[in-house]
Each structure stands twice: as structure tokens, then as C-alpha cells.
């Protein structure tokens, strides 16, 4: 009898994991290379959410999440290879890098395998347009960010702008959206310049702007590290005093350590921690889990991503069928993430999320608000 009991107990233990379903999530993200600045904090946030959910017994108390991680080295070709490997490993959800271009490299694999793919933090609204039904973004769109920052600039009484953009990637063309909204709301665009990603020297552009007869009230760019600090310092050194507006790409510690040159810079990002709001709660969790303070909102964006997956699996009642999960994600409404509420219903995969406006003040972030953009002003996605 005793032996029978022992055997039953062992049998029950062995059977237990088989009964609870496991959701396999494949992470094909950039843990090294240029995009690591964004993807690596996002994945830190992903881990916090997954650990939290698994510690509570899985999604809905039944479905455990298993992460399979691949580093794509910020490379488009490597992204598609990793995506294929993960599809072969039987994942139900794929997570792709923080830029539309490498994410799009995996799109053929994603579509033919019919597995939902979510980019960690790509913000180009063209991503789900090109990517089709299985491609989702996890960040406020470039056109929405630009609408919020342009509206803010106009409210501040800024009448003229100059934009500096790079045709090298979808994301770095955000200033074109900004110019469109700025003009539509009665402002004038004095001119534009292009740069290339990784360009070290911005002195020629800075000198040209400094020599303009009418100095622009606002200069808008979506350049990010290491280009943004170089550009900003070159502009300030050339004597340009215009308000600088950037975007989420500069939501990193470097921007806050630039001293006088960085003072007053305004940028749009995914959220801001206020006492007791979900982002502040997340930051507390992050510190408890890692021992470090969260330095960027991208940690919380990773948490959001898993919250979206969790909500979708709750809708499918624990099913890990990729097609069911895709349909569930596409119909999610008002999911509470760490940075914002997230809605996919009624969109093409570009979520409706809040955009926070942040200003650099004395090396710290000052919250300017999270204004809702005027839907009529949001420019249509632009193919670059």
C-alpha cells in the first residue's frame, strides 16, 4: 500500500506539468549592437512580468510562460534567421526588435507560420501596415508622438520650426510627421536637413541653422544616441538657442547627463511615473527584482508587452494556439499596462496608448503631461 501511494504521488508529480499548458514565447531581440540600448531594457521588463505571472501559477493560474531567447545583434538578416528558429521551436508568440526595419525582415516567416509577432518598441506606424495581420507594435506611433509634440510646441507659442531627419530608417523620419502637423496647425517650417545614422559631426548643419536670418523657434529631430548628443552639442556650440524637441529614442540616461546642453530639451515617450500610478508601481517592482533603479521607460514597455500577451491568453481561455492568440490580441481593449492603457481593437496593430511629454530640467525629468492628440491632426502613415 505504501509503495502504491509513493508511486501515485510520483505519477501525479510527473503528470502535473503536462496538465498545465505552457505558452512558449520566442524573443528574437537585439541584446547586442545599436538597438541593444532599447531591446535590452525591454527584455529586463519582460522577465519581470513573466516571473511575476509564473510565480502566481501562470496566466489565469494554469498557463506557464516559457521564454526562448535569441540575440539578433541588431541585424535584419539575423532577425529573420532567429525568427525561423523560434518558429521551428514551436513558439506561440514572437517578440521582434525595437525597430521596424529588422522586424520587417522577419515578416515573411511570421506571416507564413501565422504566429502573432510583437515588436518590443518599434514606433513606426508603417510596421503593421507592411507587416500585415500578424504584426503588432507595442509603442505609441511616430505620427501620434509627432502630433502630441507639435501641438505642445504650438501651444507654447512657437511659430516656426526646422527639422533634422534621417532617411536611413522609418523611425528617424518622424520629423516629417512633425512638420506636417506643425504646418497644419498654422506654423511655418523654415527648412529641413538630413543626416545619416551614426554621423559623428553635425557642425556643418549647426552652422547652417545658426546663420539663418530667422532663427527657428523649435528644432525637431528623432535622432537618437550617439547622434542626438552630438547634434545637440553642435547646435548649442554654434549659438542656436531654439527649443529642441526629440522623441522616445532619447529617453536614456545620456540625455539627462548632458548638463547645460541638455537643459530644456522636450521629448515624447511612452509614460511617466507619478506617485501611485502603475509606472511607479512597476519601478518599485523593478528595483525589488533587480536591485537597480529603472533608468528608462523601456523597462516598463517590456512589462506591457507580456501584459498584452497575458490578456490575450486569458481571452483564449488558456489556449496557446497562435491563431487564437492573434485574434485575441487584435480585439484587446483598455488593457492596463505599466505605462498606459493599451487598445488594439479598431487599429491595424498599432496600439492606442498614451504619449507622455517630458522636459529635461536640471538633469532630471519633468513631466509636462500626457495630452490626448487631436485625431483629425494625426498624419497618415508615410512609406519611406
Amino acid at each position, binding site marked *: 500500500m505504501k509503495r502504491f501511494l509513493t508511486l501515485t504521488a510520483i505519477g501525479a508529480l510527473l503528470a502535473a506539468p503536462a496538465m498545465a499548458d505552457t505558452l512558449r514565447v520566442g524573443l528574437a531581440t537585439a*541584446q*547586442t*549592437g*545599436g538597438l*541593444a*540600448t532599447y531591446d*535590452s*531594457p525591454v527584455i529586463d521588463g519582460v522577465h519581470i512580468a513573466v516571473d511575476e505571472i509564473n510565480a502566481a501559477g501562470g496566466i489565469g493560474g494554469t498557463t506557464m510562460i516559457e521564454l526562448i531567447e535569441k540575440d539578433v545583434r541588431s541585424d535584419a538578416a539575423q532577425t529573420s534567421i532567429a525568427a525561423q528558429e523560434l518558429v521551428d521551436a514551436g513558439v506561440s508568440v514572437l517578440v521582434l526588435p525595437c525597430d521596424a526595419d529588422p522586424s520587417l525582415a522577419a515578416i515573411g516567416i511570421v506571416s507564413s507560420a501565422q504566429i502573432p509577432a510583437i515588436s518590443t518598441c518599434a514606433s513606426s506606424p508603417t510596421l503593421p501596415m507592411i507587416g500585415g495581420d500578424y504584426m503588432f507594435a507595442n509603442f505609441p506611433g511616430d505620427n501620434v508622438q509627432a502630433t502630441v509634440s507639435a501641438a505642445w510646441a504650438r501651444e507654447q507659442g512657437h511659430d516656426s520650426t526646422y527639422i533634422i531627419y534621417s*532617411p536611413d530608417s522609418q523611425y528617424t523620419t518622424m520629423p516629417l510627421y512633425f512638420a506636417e502637423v506643425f504646418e497644419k496647425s498654422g506654423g511655418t517650417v523654415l*527648412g*529641413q*536637413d*538630413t543626416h*545619416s545614422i*551614426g554621423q*559623428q*559631426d553635425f*557642425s*556643418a*548643419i549647426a*552652422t*547652417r541653422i*545658426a*546663420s539663418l536670418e530667422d532663427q527657428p523657434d523649435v528644432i525637431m529631430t528623432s535622432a537618437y*544616441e*550617439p*547622434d542626438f*548628443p*552630438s547634434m545637440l*552639442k*553642435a547646435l*548649442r*556650440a*554654434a*549659438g542656436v538657442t531654439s527649443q529642441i524637441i526629440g522623441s522616445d529614442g532619447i529617453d*536614456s*540616461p*545620456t540625455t*539627462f*547627463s*548632458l*548638463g*547645460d*546642453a541638455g537643459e530644456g530639451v522636450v521629448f515624447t515617450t511612452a509614460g511617466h511615473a507619478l506617485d501611485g500610478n502603475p509606472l511607479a508601481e512597476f519601478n518599485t517592482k523593478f528595483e525589488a527584482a533587480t536591485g537597480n533603479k529603472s533608468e528608462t521607460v523601456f523597462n516598463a514597455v517590456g512589462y506591457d508587452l507580456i501584459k498584452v500577451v497575458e490578456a490575450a491568453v486569458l481571452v483564449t481561455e488558456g489556449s496557446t494556439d497562435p491563431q487564437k492568440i492573434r485574434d485575441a490580441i487584435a480585439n484587446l481593449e483598455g488593457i492596463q499596462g505599466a505605462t498606459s492603457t493599451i487598445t488594439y481593437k479598431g487599429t491595424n496593430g498599432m496600439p492606442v496608448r498614451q504619449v507622455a511629454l517630458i522636459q529635461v530640467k536640471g538633469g532630471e525629468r519633468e513631466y509636462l503631461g500626457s495630452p490626448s492628440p487631436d485625431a483629425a491632426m494625426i498624419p497618415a502613415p508615410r512609406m519611406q
Partner: protein
Amino acid sequence: MELFLQQTANALALGGTYALLALGLAVVFSIMGLINFAHGELMTIAGYVLMYCGIASVPFVIAVPLAITASVLAAVAMERIAFRPVRNGSGATMLVTSFAVAMILQVLFQNLISARSQPVLLPALLSDSVRVFGLVIGVNKLAAIASTIVMLVFLDWFMKHQKTGVAMRAAAEDFAVARLMGIRANTVIAGAFALSGLLAGVAAVLWVSQRASVDPLMGFMPVLKAFIAAILGGLGSLRGAVAGGFLLGFIEIYLAAFLPPEMQEFRDPIGLGIVVLVLLIRPNGLIPSATLKAEKV
């Protein structure tokens, strides 16, 4: 006119930085026939030293010599560990070794420091600008021009009046004969690497003071520019490297400054097109080295 002078000052500063970078490559190439693609990683090392000094609140005036020293030491160690065992290998062996060294260092930076870029705290003075003869020039531009001049004068003196420098020139001309005259190969080669480390360190301080951050892959872009400049000037020729660096700086700045707005998107291809054009006219570079000749067939 004022705009033109202003842009010329920008070109001088950028060209000077490129000249220092190209010189670093040329010093080693002239002696060993090796293009050291790990030269950029020496800059990254100097950049990380600046970063850690910033975190430890070490004053910038001390951080700069520390960073340059680190780069010199790393260059010497690189020669001793990686390049000495393959010194008698073919050019291709040494080239591949240099790529391997670069990659290994990048992976070490990624795993031991961080894959993400790290902010470097810089004195506010470097972001200021001063008026010189009616031109507004950034302090870091002035620093770039001044350090280029100092380094070039130092290098000229070192090569002409220092024993090691003279030995290096002799070795560059004909290593075998130089050794027969009693010049020690190890000293000359280690000296060349130390010198290239010094140049990389100075260039790194100038480079990082513009971008205010360091990341594991930051060495790639400068070494690429240095390579273009060194080829443009004439591979293996030190004067050529300086000329190539300045010419590349001038091409980049003048194109960015004076190309019509609708053409700006094609600035980089046009710039490289000009480089190719120069090489078509002078296939051995602007100031070719006396010993290396590419033949036109």
C-alpha cells in the same frame, strides 16, 4: 564669406580628428604592413576610462591622461598578445587577426561592461563656444584643432630627433636592412603600436567629447573613416595620412554645408565618389609612400 570661414573651421576640426585616426593606422602599417582594424577598440577603451572616471568624479584634466595612457597600454598589449605570434604570417593572416581582436574586445565590452551605451560626464566648458575673429567656434572644435597641431608637431619631432622615431622611419623604408644595422624589431614594432595607441587615445577624447556616450561598437565608424583617409592619403605614408584625413574632413563638411538641400540625401555617396575620383587620378594616394607602389595595369 563668414559662413564659408565658419564651415572651414568646422572642416579643420573634423579633418584634424580624421588625420589623427589615419595616422594611427599609418604608423603601424608603414612598419608591419598591417591595417589594424582593432584601432577603433583602442578608442573604445579610452572612452570607457573616461566614463569610469566620470562616475568616480575624477576631474576631467586627470581623466584625459588616464584614458590616453590606457589606450597606449592596450595597444602595446595588443601587439604583444595578438600580433607578435603572427608577425611573420601573410598580410591576410594579420588582417584577420586584427578583425578577431576587434570582435573579441567588442564581446568583452558587451559582457563585462554593458551592451547598452553608457553616458560619459563631460565638463560644461566643452559644450561652450568662443568668438575668434568674428567666428563662433565650439570649445571642443578648438580643442580638436589644437590637439591635432600639438600631435603633428610632436610626431614630427619624434620621428626626426628621437632614436626610436628614426629607427621606425628606417624600418618603414626597409625592415631587413634596418635590422642588419642593429635596430631591434621588437622595440620598433612595440614603439609603433604605442604611438598608434597614443593617437587613438587623443582621437578618442575628441570623439567622445562630441557624442557624450560610449558603447561597445563605437570604434567601428572612426576606424572606417581612418581607413578611407589613409587610403586617400597614400597607405603607409604618414604625411599622406594627415593629408587624407584633412581632405576627407573637408569633403564631408563642405558637402554637408554647400550641397543643395535636395541633394543632401546623397551626401555620403557623393563624398565617397570624390574619394574614388582622387584615387583614379592618384592611384597611390595624395602623398604616396616611397616604398609601396600600386601599379596601374
